[in-house]
């Protein structure tokens, strides 16, 4: 399943160089900064009412563990650097307490929020660690059945059991309560008339945010899992489609070529047909032969290629988007096909050119070979194919056909069809505007 990594590198928590939860190491790896600098920033932000802790806790909750991060391994001698950072944090706090003396209310608010966040985080990660590390590494089939509500259930039930589940919610709830009580106790003495209402609002808000804080990681992780699952499924689908195509077409063709190795014409025909299929698959926008002139012409050319073992070089100029494939255009395609068949049958050449030019008011198609050629005056009377299938068909639909050939010089069949004109008016137009005067 290594078709393509996600185009933009994701931010992960690092497993390898972590001190605590791997947040700083993960961010450092993502940004290409030294780990020490990121850690220093977190410690420095501590000075702003505990912002560092709060940010760390949020990152911790939100970021998935790096699935490709190797073994779950903490840095060795982790106590020493931790102590170092703790000391540094203390210095920052003391320094801040000594130098700046801003409103104690916001400071308390910040620290309490940070405390709640960290508490919720610890409890959450302690219980769900197994589930979170397994999940991103899981492949498609494992997650395949977990669509919709199933994933919800799965996320809850893959916990290590009821006890952990309880512990988390009781612990989270307790922390929230402590945080809220602390806040209320802190703000209550200030209260007057309007301040009491404000406190009530604040109270409700805090309760809500506490709940959100406890449940946010769960929601976040579920959405992450769903997203990953969807991406994996799309990749899997593309791969399956490609594999089916290669299996159905390419491998069979190669097998047939091996079995017909001594027959040059068969090998040529098979290889050419396969080339055409792959080419269409790779480069061409999918167009149905019943909707687009180019697709219809290419289909006709492909059929003739297969039937007569020749190569048809199809060149189409102009946009055929508005042309559509009605009766008249179908007649044009049929006439072109007949011309190709004649070339394949009689011209004794390997290559035939088919050139179609779409203009706003007309379509010209030229089928040209450099084969043996013939004398049109001798054949026109007797040959039904040319007269009925090419010339007659074009004239019935308001166009015209002209066959230029002489022995040894090859043959060119020129087909012309006016667009946006009823057959009745077009017959007069045929006489007035002979297409050959325009091009040759």
């Amino acid at each position, binding site marked *: 399943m290594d078709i393509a990594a996600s185009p933009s590198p994701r931010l992960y928590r690092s497993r390898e160089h972590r001190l605590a939860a791997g947040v700083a190491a993960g961010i450092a790896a993502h940004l290409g900064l030294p780990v020490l600098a990121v850690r220093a920033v977190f410690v420095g932000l501590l000075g702003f009412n505990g912002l560092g802790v709060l940010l760390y806790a949020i990152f911790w909750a939100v970021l998935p563990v790096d699935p490709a991060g190797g073994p779950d391994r903490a840095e060795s001698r982790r106590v020493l650097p931790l102590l170092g950072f703790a000391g540094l944090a203390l210095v920052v706090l003391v320094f801040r307490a000594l130098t700046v003396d801003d409103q104690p209310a916001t400071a308390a608010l910040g620290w309490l929020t940070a405390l709640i966040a960290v508490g919720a985080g610890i409890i959450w990660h302690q219980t769900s660690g197994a589930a979170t590390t397994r999940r991103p590494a899981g492949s498609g089939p494992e997650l395949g059945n977990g669509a919709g509500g199933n994933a919800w259930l799965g996320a809850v039930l893959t916990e290590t059991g009821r006890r952990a589940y309880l512990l988390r919610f009781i612990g989270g709830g307790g922390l929230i309560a402590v945080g809220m009580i602390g806040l209320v106790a802190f703000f209550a003495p200030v209260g007057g008339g309007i301040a009491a209402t404000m406190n009530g609002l604040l109270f409700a808000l805090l309760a809500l945010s506490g709940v959100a804080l406890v449940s946010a990681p769960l929601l976040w992780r579920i959405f992450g899992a769903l997203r990953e699952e969807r991406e994996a499924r799309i990749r899997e689908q593309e791969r399956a489609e490609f594999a089916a195509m290669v299996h159905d077409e390419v491998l069979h063709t190669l097998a047939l070529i091996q079995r017909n190795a001594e027959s040059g014409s068969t090998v040529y025909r098979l290889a050419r047909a396969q080339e055409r299929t792959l*080419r269409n698959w790779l*480069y061409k*926008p999918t167009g149905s032969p019943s909707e687009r002139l180019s697709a219809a012409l290419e289909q006709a050319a492909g059929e003739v290629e297969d039937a007569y073992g020749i*190569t048809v*070089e199809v*060149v*189409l*100029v*102009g*946009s055929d988007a508005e042309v559509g494939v009605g009766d008249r255009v179908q007649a044009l395609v049929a006439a072109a096909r007949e011309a190709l068949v004649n070339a394949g049958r009689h011209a004794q050449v390997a*290559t*035939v*050119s088919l*050139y179609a*030019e779409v203009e706003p008011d007309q379509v010209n198609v*030229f089928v*040209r070979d*450099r084969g043996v050629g013939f004398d049109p005056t001798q054949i026109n009377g007797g040959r039904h194919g040319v007269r009925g299938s090419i010339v007659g068909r074009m004239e019935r639909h308001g166009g015209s056909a002209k066959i230029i050939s002489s022995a040894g010089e090859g043959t*060119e069949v020129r087909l012309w069809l006016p667009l946006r004109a009823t057959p009745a008016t077009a017959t007069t137009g045929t006489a007035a505007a002979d297409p050959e005067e325009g*091009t*040759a």
Partner: protein
Amino acid sequence: MSEQGDPGVPETGEAAAQPAPLRVFLVDDHAMFRAGVRAELGGQRPPDTSESGREPIELDVVGEASTVAEAVRQILVLRPDVVLLDVHMPDGGGRAVLEAVRREGGGATAVRFLALSVSDAAEDVIGLIRAGARGYVTKSISSQELAAAIRRVADGDAVFSPRLAGFVLDAFAARPDAPVADPELDQLTTREREVLRLLARGYAYKEIAKELFISIKTVETHVSNVLRKLQMSNRYELSRWAADRRLV
């Protein structure tokens, strides 16, 4: 790209009465294909009736490369007459080679490039031509035709496959008669358009000359002019062309 504003300068080819073999360099990331082309070109004795009636020249494959960096280095050292250039390679492709040789070789490079690709997607082809390739043929070409194309490119002419002619017609056909800022540069003359149409219909240069009652030289001049206009036509034209085809 001013150094190649040389529409139809065939004197070089005719001045040398008994010419040395043409030095050809192959750039393609498929070793098998390189070996095949080398064998076909090497084993090919030029036919007596060259298409344009000139004395046929022998071809000598002097080197080959499979990566952009290697190709650029060797081309600058070997200075071949013609480079056969693959469009798609893992590390940048023919266009990167062309641009690097142009850049590092300065204006002095007389090396000519002929794109030889399995891809006939419009953006690949036009992109390479705009970068300065003198022609474009697909890999399904026969070895005689390939040899003839190499000789023509070495002579300073352009080589258009029918499909390339179709792309060019498409690129310039957006508004055939509407005036543009610089008609000299951006528009094809009626004659050039006729030549391209016949090319797209599968005519050889000789047949076009007969059809239009002009000399083969004139046909080659027209085709070279188309190539020059294609390289110089403005970006606006190209982007509109690409947008029309939903390439961007």
